[in-house]
């Protein structure tokens, strides 16, 4: 009996030790770091699936709410090679007419040899429409329901379209094609990871694209999970009006083609708010075919020259020098300058555009005849330091900060800089040796049209986030000149324009402006007159300016003069768009606010 007891005790102890060891081992496995890591690795591989979730890209609208950039659904149609091999002819017969694709291309794709490691699936198109997919479904359903004869069942029973699969995609779409494409930029929907390029698309890529997350989905049915709410990217409303934009684009295209120019740019802005009403350039591309951008644009002909291409603006720049001279008090409208035809500095002679001598001229006369000698003299009167301070104050030595990607500027060479010489002062005064973009120029001229106050140019009117809306408020970025100077210069340039470039004048609305024909410096030759930049800046109505318009034709070959190509283009464009800017002419205002409506031939409507 004692012996049995002993054996029983031994068994109990043995079992206890065994279970104790098992328990400790379990404890060890539960707490050991590498064991936990292994468990997690296995869990990641077999218990979870990682999915990348992207929210829909935000839309872009014009100021009236018309869609300029949106998202469209298309389908990727692919062939599962394992099932399509040896059925190429059959598949191609059905798919070619539906997808409008070449029969042989489909057949060849279907016969690419299946290889589990290399070739499993062959995409045929990324842009099949919903209608095409519905047709494929109809054919699939028809084939699955057909009655197969016994003979057929031996040879062709396996022939169907089960190898054809499709997946929906959302891709960027621009319904207005090339309208404002220079402003919008593009999103490369065939290669989304490359990110957006140019314009609003690139500048606001972060907020347009919304969110992108990688979510770990449990494959365990006991762990409920939902797809996180992914709000759509923000939508952006632009200040441009598509009707105005369209008219301006049509005109600039015609001007570029007719004058055989390299490119053309027109900007219309509201000087009181800094809003850009239209920014048209030519050439442009349809962003739905964005891959053509590399064929169309070069280093000398940028995607959006309005903000990306500084150039020597020529005599248009005289507006800035004149304003600086008046504001500094060194000249008055009636100040007389005696033009001898040359202005000498450090042994270098500066001539007028026609090499002529115009004799005694008032400052208005200087602008009427666009005298380089006179402007050189004005800059000397202003003084070197003060002249460049004015240029800084007009924002010409910095980017404007407009909400478009790749805005460029050309730093102004100043006294003390390596390449600055005293000749720079007079040449800079009439727009040579100094480079500006059209957006910089229009921003500076806005100050003349807005009582001396310079507004920040903006092309984004509002941004609609998921939970709030941001509306761009007009922002004063400086006052380079006094209100009195602005008024005086505007009046002077309205008077001078009537003589200088009567082709630029508008019927029934008095405007101020200045033409410019900037010679282009060629390497090893210097400035040549046969190749120019023809520009024009105009604003009005003179009494209370509501618009500033900048026109630039790059290297027009048919006619090189700003007064003969850009000035009439300004008049043509502004006459067309005026009603769409909701601006009454001076005559219409006079008819509204005075008892007697001026006759059409009268000049009195200018002074209502």
């Amino acid at each position, binding site marked *: 009996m004692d012996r049995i007891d002993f054996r029983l005790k031994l068994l109990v102890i043995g079992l206890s030790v065994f279970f104790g060891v098992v328990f400790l081992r379990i404890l060890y496995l539960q707490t050991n770091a590498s064991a936990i890591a292994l468990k997690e690795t296995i869990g990641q591989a077999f218990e979870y699936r990682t999915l990348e979730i992207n929210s829909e890209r935000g839309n872009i609208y014009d100021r009236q709410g018309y869609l300029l950039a*949106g998202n469209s659904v298309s389908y990727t149609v692919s062939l599962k090679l394992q099932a399509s091999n040896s059925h190429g002819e059959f598949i191609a017969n059905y798919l070619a007419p539906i997808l409008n694709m070449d029969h042989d291309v489909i057949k060849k794709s279907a016969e690419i040899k299946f290889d589990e490691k290399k070739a499993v699936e062959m995409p045929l198109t990324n842009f099949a429409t919903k209608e095409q997919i519905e047709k494929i479904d109809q054919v699939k359903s028809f084939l699955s329901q057909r009655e197969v004869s016994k003979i057929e069942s031996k040879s062709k029973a396996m022939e169907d379209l089960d190898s054809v699969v499709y997946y929906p995609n959302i891709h960027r779409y621009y319904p207005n094609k090339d309208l404002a494409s220079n402003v919008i930029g593009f999103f490369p929907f065939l290669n989304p990871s490359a990110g957006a390029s140019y314009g609003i698309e690139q500048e606001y890529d972060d907020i347009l694209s919304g969110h992108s997350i990688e979510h770990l989905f449990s494959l365990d049915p006991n762990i409920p999970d939902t*797809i996180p709410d992914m709000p759509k990217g923000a939508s952006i*409303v632009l200040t441009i009006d598509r009707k105005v934009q*369209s008219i301006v684009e049509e005109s600039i295209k015609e001007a570029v083609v007719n004058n055989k120019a390299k490119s053309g740019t027109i900007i219309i802005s509201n000087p009181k*708010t800094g809003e850009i009403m239209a920014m048209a350039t030519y050439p442009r591309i349809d962003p739905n075919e964005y891959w053509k951008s590399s064929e169309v644009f070069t280093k000398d002909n940028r995607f959006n020259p309005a903000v990306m291409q500084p150039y020597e603006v020529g005599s248009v720049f005289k507006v800035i020098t004149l304003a600086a001279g008046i504001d500094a008090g060194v000249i008055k409208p009636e100040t007389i300058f005696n033009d001898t035809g040359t202005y000498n500095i450090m042994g270098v002679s500066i001539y007028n555009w026609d090499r002529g001598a115009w004799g005694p001229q008032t400052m208005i006369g200087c602008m009427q005849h666009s005298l380089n000698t006179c402007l050189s003299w004005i800059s000397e009167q202003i003084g070197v330091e003060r002249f460049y301070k004015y240029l800084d104050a007009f924002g010409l030595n910095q980017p404007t900060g407009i909400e478009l990607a790749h805005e460029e500027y050309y730093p102004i060479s100043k006294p003390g800089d390596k390449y600055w010489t005293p000749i720079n002062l007079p040449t800079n005064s009439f727009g040579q040796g100094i480079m500006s973009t059209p957006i910089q120029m229009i921003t500076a001229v806005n100050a003349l049209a807005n009582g001396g106050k310079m507004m920040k140019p903006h092309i984004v009117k509002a941004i609609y986030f998921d939970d709030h809306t941001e509306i761009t408020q007009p922002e004063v970025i400086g006052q380079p000149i006094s209100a009195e100077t602005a008024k005086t210069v505007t009046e002077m340039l309205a008077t001078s324009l009537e003589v200088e470039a009567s082709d630029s004048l508008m019927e029934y609305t008095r405007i101020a402006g200045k033409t410019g024909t900037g010679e282009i410096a060629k390497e090893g030759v210097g400035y040549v007159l046969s190749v120019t930049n023809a520009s024009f800046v105009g604003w009005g109505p003179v009494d209370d300016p509501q618009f500033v318009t900048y026109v630039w034709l790059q290297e027009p070959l048919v006619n090189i003069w700003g007064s003969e190509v850009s000035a009439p283009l300004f008049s043509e464009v502004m006459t067309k768009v005026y009603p769409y800017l909701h601006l009454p002419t001076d005559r219409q205002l006079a008819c509204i606010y005075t008892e007697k409506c001026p006759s059409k031939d009268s000049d009195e409507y200018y002074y209502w």
Partner: protein
Amino acid sequence: MKTIQSAYRLAPWRKQVQNILNVIIVLVFIASVTMIYLYSSAQMTKMKLEIQKLHEERSNLTRMIADYLTREGQITSFDEMEKRSQQAGYIPIDMNDEETYTYLPIAGFREDNYSGLDNVPRNLSIPVSIVKPEYTESLQRWLKEHVSIKKRGE
């Protein structure tokens, strides 16, 4: 002669019945727990499939909304509108003839910075109800969190 008698608190057959009943109770308990577990698992799986299906529907709806908005944009695109207006017999007005349009003064009217913005469609987001934490966290984690909250509260 001394007689030895066995005395039992319970009759052996009663004890056997009791043991059998105990085993049955344990089995019933295990079966009940298993049944509840299987039922809840099935419900959970059903729910998860439902969520996946709804998510698929939601994705489809999102795609459709985007597509319809863009189709509307396409139909109302500048070129299309111009084409349709020409087909309808409209002709462009002569901008040089200022008699064709006129302005009327409206006392006190001033165009503000917000004009035109009402025409822009707002972002449409389909609301998603998030699974409540009590459906996803374990009892252990719930206890841990609530105890730590209470401790922090003290």
